[in-house]
C-alpha cells in the first residue's frame, strides 16, 4: 500500500495530467457544438447582455467602410428603383398571362448585431433578439446584400449566429447565371471557395453565387457572393473558384433572420442515412482488422515452421 502511495506521489504530475486529459476527451465525445441548451443558453444570454455594453464603442474604419458601401448601394438602388417600377407594370401583365405561381417568401425578423466573437478562426455574432421574438436555432440570417450565417443558439432575448466565414460551414450553392451547382466552404481569409465544380461547367468571374435548392439549411436563391477567380488548375479535375462574400462582415450592424427551418422529415432521413453509412464503415474496419490479424498469425506460424 505504501508503495502505491509513494508511486502516486512520485508521479502525481503525470497521473493528474492523464486523468484530466481523459476527462476532457470524455467531455469532447459527449458534447456537440450544435447542441447548446440549458445552462449554456443562460450563459449566452448573459454574454449577450455583456457584449451589448461594449456595442457602443465606435470603430472608425468600419464606419468609413460602411459609408462608402452605403453610398455605392444608394447609387445602385436609385437605378434599381427606376427599373423596378417598369418591371412591376410588366410583371402584372405577364403574371396574368402565364399563371405565374409565386414561390414562398419567408417572414423575417430584423435584428441588430450587438457583439462579435472570433474564437480560434471561427466567427460568431450575437444578436439582440431571441426566443421571445420567435427565433429558433437553425434559422438562416441574411442582410439585403446576402447570406450572413445561421442561428446556432438562442436564449429568450439574445441569439447567437455562426457566420459563413467558418471552417464548419458547407453550403450547397449554385451559379445564378448558369445554374451549375457546387459546395461553398471557407478555408481562411476573407474569401470563400466553391468546390466540386468540374472544369466543363460554365462559371465565370463576375457570376453571382446563390444558395441552391439542394441546401438543407438555407432556402433557395439567397445571394452568397461574387466569383472573383475562376480558373483551371493543372492536374486538377475541378475548377478553382474563389467567391467574395456580398456581405461586408466588418461593418454589419443589422440583419434579417428568416423564419425558415429545415424540413424535419428531410433532416431525419439524412441523419438515418449518415448513421447507416457510419455503421457500414465501422463494420468494414472490423472485417479488415480480423483479416489482417489472421494474415499476421499465418505469417508468424509459417516463419516458425
Amino acid at each position, binding site marked *: 500500500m505504501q508503495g502505491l502511495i509513494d508511486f502516486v506521489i512520485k508521479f502525481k504530475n503525470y497521473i493528474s495530467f492523464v486523468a484530466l486529459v481523459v476527462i476532457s*476527451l470524455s467531455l*469532447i465525445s459527449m458534447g456537440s457544438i450544435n447542441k*447548446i441548451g440549458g445552462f449554456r443558453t443562460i450563459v449566452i444570454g448573459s454574454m449577450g447582455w455583456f*457584449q451589448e455594453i*461594449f456595442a457602443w464603442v465606435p470603430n472608425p474604419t468600419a464606419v468609413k467602410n460602411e459609408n462608402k458601401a452605403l453610398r455605392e448601394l444608394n447609387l445602385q438602388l436609385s437605378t434599381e428603383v427606376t427599373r423596378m417600377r417598369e418591371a412591376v407594370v410588366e410583371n402584372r401583365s405577364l403574371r396574368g398571362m402565364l399563371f405565374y405561381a409565386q414561390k414562398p417568401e419567408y417572414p423575417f425578423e430584423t435584428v441588430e448585431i450587438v457583439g462579435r466573437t*472570433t*474564437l480560434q*478562426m471561427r466567427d460568431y455574432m450575437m444578436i439582440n433578439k431571441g426566443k421571445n421574438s420567435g427565433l429558433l436555432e437553425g434559422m438562416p440570417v441574411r442582410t439585403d446584400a446576402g447570406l450572413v450565417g445561421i442561428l446556432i443558439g438562442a436564449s429568450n432575448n439574445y441569439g447567437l449566429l455562426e457566420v459563413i466565414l467558418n471552417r464548419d460551414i458547407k453550403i450547397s450553392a449554385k451559379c445564378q447565371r448558369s445554374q451549375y451547382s457546387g459546395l461553398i466552404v471557407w478555408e481562411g481569409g476573407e474569401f470563400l471557395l466553391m468546390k466540386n465544380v468540374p472544369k466543363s461547367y460554365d462559371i465565370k468571374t463576375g457570376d453571382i453565387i446563390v444558395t441552391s435548392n439542394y441546401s438543407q439549411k438555407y432556402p433557395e436563391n439567397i445571394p452568397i457572393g461574387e466569383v472573383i477567380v475562376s480558373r483551371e488548375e493543372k492536374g486538377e479535375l475541378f475548377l478553382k473558384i474563389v467567391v467574395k462574400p456580398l456581405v461586408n462582415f466588418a461593418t454589419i450592424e443589422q440583419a434579417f433572420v428568416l423564419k425558415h427551418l429545415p424540413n424535419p422529415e428531410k433532416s431525419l432521413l439524412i441523419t438515418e442515412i449518415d448513421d447507416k453509412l457510419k455503421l457500414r464503415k465501422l463494420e468494414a474496419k472490423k472485417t479488415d482488422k480480423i483479416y489482417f490479424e489472421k494474415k499476421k498469425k499465418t505469417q508468424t506460424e509459417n516463419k516458425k515452421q
Partner: protein
Amino acid sequence: MMNLLQDTQLKRNEVRRYITYAILSVVLIIVNLTVLDFVAIGNITPDLLLILCVWISIQEGQFIGVFAAFIIGLTLDIVSIDVIGTNALTKILVAFVAGFFYREGEAFKTIGSYKFLLIVFGTAVLHNLLYNFFYLKVSDASFVTFFMKYGIATALYTTVLGIFPMLSKIPRKGY
C-alpha cells in the same frame, strides 16, 4: 513559534495568489469574448488565457498548473460556444509542457527572461496544432496550409502579447 508564523504567512500568500489567478482568469475570459475583437488582425486574435496558463505553470509547477489550466479551459468552453472539453484539453497540454520549466523559487527569473517568450511560442504552436486538429475533416486537405497560416500567426500574436508579463518581471537594475 517562528516557524509556525512563517508557515501561516506562506499559506496566506499562497491563497492570495490563487485568488489573484481566479480573478485574472475571469477578467481575461471576459476580455477574450468581448474586447479582443478590437485588436484582431485579419481574424487572428491572441490567446491571453494561454499566457496565464504558462505563467501559472512556471510559478506553481506542473501539478497545480494542469488543474488551473483545466478549470480555465473548461470555463472558456462553457462561456464560449466551443465543444466542451476542447479548450480544457489544449490548455492542460500547454500547462503540462510549461510545467517542465518550473524551478522552485526562480519563477520570476524565467518569466522575466526571453525564455518565457520561447515557452509561450512553443506551447501556443502545440495548442493551435491540437485545437485545429479537432476541426480537421477528412475531406480537408488544406490542414497544413491552414495551420501554417493561422496556427503560427496566432502563436506569434500571443507571443507578442507575452512580452508584457515578461517586462513586468524583468529584474530592475539598482544604482
